[in-house]
């Protein structure tokens, strides 16, 4: 049985015990022990404390974008595919080298994008932190160019 399954079973146990917790305080140490064993952290409400409605924080969903680095055999050109990628601050862009040659992702005019050499079959990730338009190229094959737009 996997650790995940064990943890799930223990969680179920905990939930069952919690339902009767105040009626059977003697069980509490057992619950705590089980929770500890399952690696689950929880805080039992203190006496007299009213548990507030669980607030649901407005989750910001950050996307992951993939840009492929490869030879476009139709046009016989090295390409970042897509050549232009538009993302939001917080999004992650992953450049995957699908070519048989090494490539880089290097900013044209600043140090924003500086991947170093990306070997064949490897990737490089960058988290967009600042709005702007960033032109980049492959330092090894400067005829390979792309644009990152952060909105």
């Amino acid at each position: 049985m996997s650790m995940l399954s064990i943890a799930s079973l223990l969680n179920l146990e905990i939930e069952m015990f919690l339902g009767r917790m105040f009626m059977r305080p003697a069980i509490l140490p057992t619950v705590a022990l089980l929770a500890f064993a399952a690696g689950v952290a929880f805080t039992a409400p203190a006496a007299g404390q009213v548990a507030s409605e669980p607030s649901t924080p407005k989750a910001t969903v950050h996307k992951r974008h993939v840009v492929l680095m490869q030879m476009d055999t139709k046009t016989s050109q090295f390409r970042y595919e897509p050549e232009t990628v538009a993302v939001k601050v917080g999004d992650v862009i992953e450049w995957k080298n699908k070519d048989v040659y090494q490539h880089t992702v290097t900013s044209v005019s600043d140090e924003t994008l500086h991947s170093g050499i990306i070997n064949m079959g490897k990737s490089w990730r960058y988290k967009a932190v600042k709005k702007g338009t960033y032109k980049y190229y492959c330092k090894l094959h400067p005829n390979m160019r792309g644009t990152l737009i952060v909105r």
Partner: protein
Amino acid sequence: MKLRMSQAVAVTTVVVCAMVFSPIMQAQGTDAGPTDPQIVGIVVTANNIDIEYAKIALSKSKNKEVLEFAHQMIRDHSTLQKSVFALGKKLNVTPADSTTEASLKSQAEKTNAKLKALKGKEFDKAYIDNEIAFHKQVIDATNSVLIPNAKNAELKGALQNAVPLFQGHLEHAQNVASSLG
């Protein structure tokens, strides 16, 4: 120093002039263009030549940009070489000798000797200038001689796909040349 600089300029000029009258381009003027086996032979030889230039650079240069470029030439041209051999095997095309290929080798031997006689910044400049000239000529020859004469469609496609690699090397060499001043 002035003497060294003038030597470097002279070598660079000789190298560039040699490439302008490149053996690859001479094939263009002949009535019968190179055959597919000869085309493969020319590409293999051109690859080997650039790898040899890069090995000389690795043994002589101390410039970071030049060394990175030389390492890249060895990696990229070795990769291309493997794909050329693999394609030749697949198509049952064995690299064949040609006067063009022989001239390329002869020319490269002279350039190698000239590069080996230089050192320091003079070497870096001559090496990179030669790389610029070499890749320009390879691009021109591939577009105007090798691709039009390739009979096999797959070989023709492989040559077309090699051009952006050479173009990338050319632009990289030009960037290194700018950094050398």
